[in-house]
């Protein structure tokens, strides 16, 4: 992201701030807001039954004739070159069809790095893929073996002998800090923000905290492994992949392999968990190239170790948060800066300071992120990149300040709630985090918290309560397109290349189409997961549902004109214009004379047509620039810490959310809980062990990387304000990532409340409490 972008975004924001909201495209609130329909009901997952039956076919489960299997070989040094590579034994091993190395890999340009401005730029790394003998990080792909069976490929991969000529590599976070660089912008926000004289305000504040917080390397660990099944027929490519960016991947593959976009089809109807990790990495390029070389359909299912080696996770960070407050606890200074990793060949800035900009009112702000370069697999976006760990530092600091002030931590937060964006002054589209705090505190029984740490005890267990605020920005991606089809049999289908990773996207799409068209749920189907369909944006930034919703809205606005044209003169609707009708009761009706109506069936029957389709795209997401739009949350945690062992057991967790309209309480609650559980892992158990001597990840297994198990997960209560956001489609904001924000802070603060010990580095393992 460039300085130029800062100027463009800044200028657009400034211009839009003068434009009345209703003049913006889609500037009047969505008419579905507040209407009682399928939206807001507990529709069951439309794909639930085939999933519990094991019938949903994932990417590595597509049967093909003549399928062959591939395995990757990874570097064991961090930087240098391959001095010798002997693949003779592998090539002659039973079943082996091909060994791919830099010596025979076709020339393929790596996909461009992920960019908000170019939907085809979906690369997580722009390092060459098997194009030369260079090694840039420990674990990089250096060869691939293709064989008739997976067992044969796996074995042959171990027979490739490689000697490396190692070069000096920086693999230590601490050492690399001195060479940190400062990039101009974080996603679409300016990196360095200086508002008021924060250091000076801090120095003279009567109350202040100023501490360093550290967070660990993490990996997504979706249970489904990265896998694709790729098949070439001539110059046509079909790829069954597990991906969060179907349309982008199709475009990127077309570009990389020099074929027209319409000759690539990427299919991904089900994704077995993504969390930011199921993007474009080296393996898709290697597999597609190898399939072409070997002339057979090919499957590459990464081993769990391979996933760790070539799919980056969340960067470790070191963050400083300082807060100055006056005698009443009002913030006079808020400073947040620090270091995270972003190699020059990576795309993710791990924007842990973004949330801090809008979380609290303060007289002055000083915010800056520095990025360091170490030789590692490029880190990437992982569920609430930035916010998940930024809120740990910020919400710990607020708790520390509350303790110093002898003030209730919820009260301190309420006292500093902003009523507009604290830095830009932009109005909130809707913001009721204060209500979320109050509702949450009441429901959780926050008043039972002992103000003095270390005073509640049951046997060997010390008990504590903590809270933390969460936030995640509203994002709507530009360019989402959908095709809406209404049929003579009274059914409708919404088609787009969207991604279903378990969020409930497909279910919620069906609900809103039913409401938009006035159809029962049972009459609506959805087609997603196919790049041949109109292009939806990637699933990221908690943006997919509103991005698709805006396109559905646009399509639903186009449909009446089409239907009226078809209805003709003998229809009761004859003479009405599109603006004068509504879709309801399975057809069109005059807005002013509801008796004048005709069903879709009748219109299409008379026109002797099987179906009518419209394709439409959502309006540009200008609301993001005009308004401050954030999902927010208040998280509460009660836990026990063993006095003997330092073990922590979380007994209760409550998330209180303000995220606009909740479209489906059942799937939304699951999303919230899921984020919160991943937050427990961040707080307590998870860490990717990067050996800083070698730059090698030492725990590339699910046995040694501890994601929370059932026994770690308490019953989790979730509530929400359900106040619609008047500026967003359906009144909704994102809910996929907000759940993980604020949790680590709430847990750390509860640990402090239980023990009086402040742990500022994650994960909070028992040794830190002995």
């Amino acid at each position, binding site marked *: 992201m460039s300085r130029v972008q800062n100027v463009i975004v800044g200028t657009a924001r400034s211009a839009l701030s003068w434009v009345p909201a209703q003049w913006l495209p889609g500037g009047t609130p969505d008419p579905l807001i507040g209407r009682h329909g399928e939206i807001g009901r507990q529709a069951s997952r439309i794909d639930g039954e085939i999933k*519990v039956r*094991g019938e949903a076919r994932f990417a590595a489960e597509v049967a093909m004739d003549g399928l062959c299997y591939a395995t990757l070989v990874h570097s064991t040094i961090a930087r240098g070159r391959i001095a010798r590579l002997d693949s003779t034994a592998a090539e002659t091993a039973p079943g082996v069809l091909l060994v791919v190395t830099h010596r025979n890999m076709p020339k393929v340009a790596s996909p461009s790095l992920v960019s908000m401005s170019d939907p085809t730029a979906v690369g997580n790394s722009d390092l060459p893929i098997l194009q030369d003998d260079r090694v840039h990080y420990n674990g990089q792909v250096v060869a691939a073996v293709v064989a008739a069976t997976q067992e044969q490929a796996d074995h042959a991969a171990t027979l490739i002998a490689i000697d490396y000529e190692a070069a000096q590599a920086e693999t230590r976070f601490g050492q690399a800090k001195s060479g940190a660089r400062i990039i101009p912008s974080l996603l679409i926000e300016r990196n360095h923000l200086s508002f008021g004289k924060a250091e000076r305000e801090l120095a003279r504040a009567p109350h202040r905290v100023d501490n360093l917080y550290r967070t660990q390397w993490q990996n997504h*660990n979706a249970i489904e492994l990265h896998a694709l099944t790729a098949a070439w027929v001539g110059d046509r490519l079909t790829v069954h992949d597990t991906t969060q960016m179907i349309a982008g991947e199709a475009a990127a593959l077309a570009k990389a392999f020099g074929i027209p976009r319409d000759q690539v089809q990427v299919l991904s109807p089900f994704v*077995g968990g993504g969390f930011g990790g199921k993007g474009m990495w080296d393996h898709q390029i290697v597999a597609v190239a190898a399939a072409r070389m070997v002339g057979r359909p090919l499957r590459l299912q990464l*081993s769990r170790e391979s996933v760790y080696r070539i799919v980056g996770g969340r960067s470790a960070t070191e963050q400083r948060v300082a807060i100055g407050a006056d005698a009443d606890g009002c913030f006079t200074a808020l400073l947040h800066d620090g270091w995270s990793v972003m190699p020059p060949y990576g795309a993710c800035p791990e924007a842990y300071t973004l949330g801090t900009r809008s979380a609290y009112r303060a007289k002055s702000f000083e915010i800056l992120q520095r990025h360091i370069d170490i030789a590692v697999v490029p880190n990437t976006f992982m569920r609430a990149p930035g916010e998940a760990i930024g809120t740990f530092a910020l919400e710990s600091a607020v708790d520390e300040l509350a303790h110093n002030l002898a003030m209730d931590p919820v009260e301190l937060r309420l006292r500093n709630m902003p009523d507009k964006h604290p830095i830009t002054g932009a109005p909130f589209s809707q913001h009721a985090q204060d209500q979320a705090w109050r509702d949450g505190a009441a429901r959780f029984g926050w008043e039972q918290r002992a103000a003095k740490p270390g005073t509640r005890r049951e046997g060997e267990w010390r008990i504590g309560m903590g809270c933390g605020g969460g936030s995640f920005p509203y994002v709507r991606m530009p360019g989402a397109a959908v095709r809406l089809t209404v049929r003579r049999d009274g059914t409708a289908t919404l088609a787009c290349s969207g991604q279903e*990773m378990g969020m409930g996207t497909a279910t919620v799409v069906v609900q809103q189409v039913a409401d938009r068209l006035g159809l029962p749920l049972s009459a609506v189907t959805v087609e997603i997961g196919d790049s041949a369909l109109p292009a939806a944006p990637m699933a990221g930034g908690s943006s997919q549902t509103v991005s698709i919703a805006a396109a559905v809205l646009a399509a639903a606005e186009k449909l009446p004109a089409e239907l009226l044209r078809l209805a003709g003169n003998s229809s009761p609707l004859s003479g009405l214009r599109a603006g004068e009708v509504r879709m309801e009761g399975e057809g069109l009706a005059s807005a002013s004379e509801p008796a004048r109506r005709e069903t879709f069936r009748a219109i299409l029957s008379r026109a002797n047509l099987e179906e009518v389709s419209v394709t439409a795209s959502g309006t540009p997401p200008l609301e993001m620039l005009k308004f401050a739009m954030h999902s927010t949350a208040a998280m509460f945690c009660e836990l026990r810490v063993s006095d003997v062992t330092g073990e922590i057991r979380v007994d209760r967790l409550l998330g209180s959310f303000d995220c606009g309209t909740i479209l489906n309480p059942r799937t939304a609650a699951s999303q919230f809980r899921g984020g919160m559980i991943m937050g427990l892992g961040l707080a307590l158990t998870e860490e990717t062990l990067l050996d800083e001597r070698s730059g090698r990840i030492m725990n590339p297994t699910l046995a040694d990387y501890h994601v929370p198990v059932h026994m770690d997960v308490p*019953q989790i209560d979730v509530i929400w304000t359900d106040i619609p956001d008047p500026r967003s489609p359906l009144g909704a904001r994102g809910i996929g990532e907000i759940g993980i924000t604020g949790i680590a802070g709430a847990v750390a603060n509860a640990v402090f409340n239980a023990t009086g010990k402040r742990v500022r580095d994650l994960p909070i393992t028992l040794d830190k409490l002995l």
Partner: protein
Amino acid sequence: MTIRINGTDYDPPEDARVSLLDLLRDRLQLTGTKVGCNQGACGACTVLIDGRRVLSCLTLAAQADGRKVTTIEGLGADGLHPLQAAFLEHDGLQCGYCTPGQICAAAAMLVEAEAGMPSYVTADLTAPVTLSRDEVRERMSGNLCRCGAHNGIVDAILSVAQERAA
């Protein structure tokens, strides 16, 4: 000998390295059984051998020779198994990938508990087992879920356990 999978007999593979998991998924297209780690660390590949829950990734197909294997496809062969229905009812899934393993593990777990097999959290090792929430959590801890459907999974299992006890 043959491996009987969901009532049908299959020959064991010629390559002794083939795991039961890869036999199911790659050779027999029984892809309801999932692969999450191939390291015995996630439970996604859980199947029943002679009624007991095991990890098919660490079981060589040859070891299943002469035994009866039940996969998710076999569990719900006659309509939805009560656990499958309960997982839907309690939203015990999101992406659905760990789900077949969770359901197979739960099916065997209910039988284990009914047979009085204790767990690490059972207070009295010699008393009959009552499936509390903690008992279910401990007994299901071999099945990882990354989407975070844990609450729904435990609720689903408890509801079926209560039905069976009634």
